[in-house]
């Protein structure tokens, strides 16, 4: 009897370890020190485009930011209305990426993929219809990107990789011309 007990406990231990492992994997993200959403929320209000200063020692909004990329972000909140993102894409290296608060990159468009340099993107929650967006917008509908967000809150992050050190000022200026705000229909009579 006493000889058999340890074997039993080893099996029990392994099963327990497996269960604890699974629980830990599912809870560790929630115990994360500070995820990206929390870090960016400290920098300003939602539905506003905020340009991040160039990453330098001790001044990084997030760990491991690229020192040779300029960033601007908009923490979107679709609770009341869809949001509209506008940017003059300065070059084909630009990347506009949309994230869930957990950091899932659910949509990305690259400058190189765009037909023209002006980005006009409408981000809507699953229950919000923006079919009239293309009609109401001054541009023809194929120039407006409509993206359905799987979440009501998240982050839009624009990356401007620098093709060389001399391009920094140009990228920073171009990022200043980006905007993010609630989408309002021009004809809201009905």
């Amino acid at each position, binding site marked *: 009897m006493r000889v058999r007990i340890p074997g039993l*406990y080893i099996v029990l231990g392994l099963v327990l370890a497996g269960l604890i492992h699974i629980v830990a994997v599912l809870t560790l993200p929630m115990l994360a*020190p500070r995820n990206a959403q929390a870090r960016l929320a400290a920098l300003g209000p939602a539905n506003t485009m905020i340009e991040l200063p160039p990453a330098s020692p001790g001044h990084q909004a*997030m760990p491991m930011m690229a020192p040779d990329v300029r960033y601007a972000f908009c923490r979107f909140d679709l609770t009341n209305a869809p949001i509209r993102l506008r940017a003059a894409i300065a070059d084909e290296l630009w990347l506009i990426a949309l994230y869930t608060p957990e950091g899932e*990159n659910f949509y990305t468009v*690259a400058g190189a993929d765009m037909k023209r340099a002006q980005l006009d993107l409408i981000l809507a929650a699953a229950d919000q219809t923006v079919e009239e967006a293309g009609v109401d917008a001054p541009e023809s509908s194929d120039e407006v990107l409509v993206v359905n967000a799987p979440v009501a809150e998240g982050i839009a992050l624009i990356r401007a990789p620098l093709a060389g050190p001399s391009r920094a000022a140009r990228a920073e200026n171009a990022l200043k011309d980006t905007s993010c705000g609630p989408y309002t229909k021009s004809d809201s009579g009905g």
Partner: protein
Amino acid sequence: MDADRLTALPNPLLLSPSHSTPWREEQATHSMRSLAYFIGTFVVALMLGIGSAWYMIERGSPLTTTKVGPWASWISEGNPNADPYTEAHVARSGRLPLSSTVARYFTARTDSAGHTLTSACQYSIVGSPLNARWWSLAVYDENGGLIENPSGRYSFNDEELLRHADGSFRINLSSKARPENWLPSGAVEQPLMLMLRIYSPRETDASGVGLVPSERLPNVERTGCE
């Protein structure tokens, strides 16, 4: 052998004052031993479970990461349908990585020989051109912070590098100024981390994940230490 390991853990028997009545002692000892085994098992299971979860989330495992020499890369990083390990890794990192279908990130904490990267040593990072729209190699401290240096240089990207005639390059990672491409590792002696970010790789695998041939990843060779 495993039984010995279990009993070597803190044993509640030694702390318990309740072994007073002699005629029940054998039975009491037996159940106490069972309790000790159970607690021991639980403690070991807790350490194994949490330890393995932590390691697989922080450093990855063959399920989630590819390892090429010193370089490690999360295959589904940033991907909305990523596995729970990758999701936990991204949430804990505090970063917003691009989906692996758009960009690939490779990190190295050791040189190609497997020795921990440190600012106490000098390294020669030699590589060939990467087939991507843009890429950059940056050096960080072990927490992902940029390292203070007099030249304000934290990275080299494909547009900035001085290259050889065949397109290959050499980056000298060291605390003291070096010719060619000098990537300063700072005056403070500390472990280092390299990150190679490759935006829009031109080759992809069947599921659309950016493909970077392993022989294209730079070699990190230690050339000397202080």
